[in-house]
């Protein structure tokens, strides 16, 4: 079966580079699923989960903000590049880390009420990150996925 090459890149590191069967992504206009031989596409991403399907197994990842680029390379393989501000493997999110993220989100929300403009941006970004982690972790808690 034809596969596509998924790359998830953040400014800090390369999170994932793997051949997958299909991938679902949260774009600004709603969730899409990219299959091999998708036409070239550029679009923005919102916070949520990127779910790749490899051999019938789900590989979920939490991402926050960024872009999606789909294109064909010279060998005819579909390349899907996700440029995210932040991304994390679901399996990296242990229960403990989730609890921490939850506590952090609460704390940040409290702090945000009395903060100056400059710091506000930082906290807003942190808050979004924490909330996304919690949301995605909750969603996948009961489902089965590849660790």
């Amino acid at each position, binding site marked *: 079966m034809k596969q596509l090459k998924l790359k998830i890149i*953040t400014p800090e590191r390369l999170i994932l580079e793997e051949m997958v069967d299909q991938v679902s992504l949260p774009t600004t206009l709603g969730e899409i699923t990219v299959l091999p031989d998708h*036409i070239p596409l*550029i679009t923005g991403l919102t916070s949520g989960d990127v779910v790749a399907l490899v051999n019938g197994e789900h590989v979920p990842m939490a991402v926050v903000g*960024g872009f999606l680029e789909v294109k064909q390379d010279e060998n005819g393989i579909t390349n899907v590049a996700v440029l995210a*501000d932040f991304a994390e493997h679901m399996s990296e999110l242990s229960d403990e880390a989730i609890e921490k993220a939850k506590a952090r989100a609460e704390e940040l929300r409290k702090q945000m009420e009395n903060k100056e403009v*400059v710091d506000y941006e930082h906290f807003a970004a942190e808050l979004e990150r924490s909330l996304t982690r919690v949301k995605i972790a909750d969603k996948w808690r009961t489902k089965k996925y590849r660790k």
Partner: protein
Amino acid sequence: MASTKEIKRRIKSVKSTKKITKAMELVAASKMKRAVSSTLASRLYAEYSWEVLTSIAKNTEKITHPLFVEREVKNILLLLITSNRGLCGAYNTQVIKKVLAFLQNSQKTVFGEESKRPSFGIDIVAIGKKGDVMMRRVGKNIIASFFELPSNVSLFDIIPISELAVNEYNLLNYDKVLVAYTDFVSALSQKPNIKQIIPVSKTDLKELIEKVAEAGLPREERGRPASAEKPVDYLFEGDQEALIGSLAEKITRMQIYQMFLESNASEQSSRMVAMKNASDAAGEMIDDLTLVFNKARQSNITREISEISAGMASVN
């Protein structure tokens, strides 16, 4: 000649200083390695965002987003990246000197008669305590200072800085945003530099990305198809203006992040070199002092022997 006891005490104090400088050298070396590797890790993102930007630019005739459009320069915002701590050789002095020269130049063009350039004001955003102190001393207007950045900085730590720069630019408070940072050439040489980040100039950006790419892996391993030559017809989903806007903001952020990493690597490497010199100097000083100590000890013994033999002679 100082007493042996005193010399001994001095040797001891120099020895403990050497221990400290040696430890600082090792710490700086490991921090430098980390900073360099994170600079390399951010390269892939830079390349891809550049690719996305060029493909958008190809499909739209002209980018009209304000972050790409040059406008008449009245006010400049300068981000100055320095360290929070001293003991790092000429690192801070170099970049501050560069900034002062830049400020002086701009003063000349303001007041010089032959100048045809429009006059402009310069305000500072200080990143790092050393630059902040220096800019306050020369009486520059500092609109914000950031001191709390950790040495293993993440992109999230940069957001407030880039957001501030972009907002000030969008509010028309400033017409150009520059960054003064230190370029990490190698462990032994760092170069202070001033670069424009807003409006986004495509040639500058390309240069930056290419430079970073060269510093990375060999070409074959980079695995980046030369798609620049083959235009791809992309489908754009969503508002293109908004996409360009957020891309521009991300690129700005990424640039500041990268410059910060470069500066960080430079800081650590110049600290490493400074501390190495200090350790070497301490070693030399210990040798000298040991020599002096031995001489003093020797002369003491000689004196005692001659005293004893003189005593013996008088008794006999």
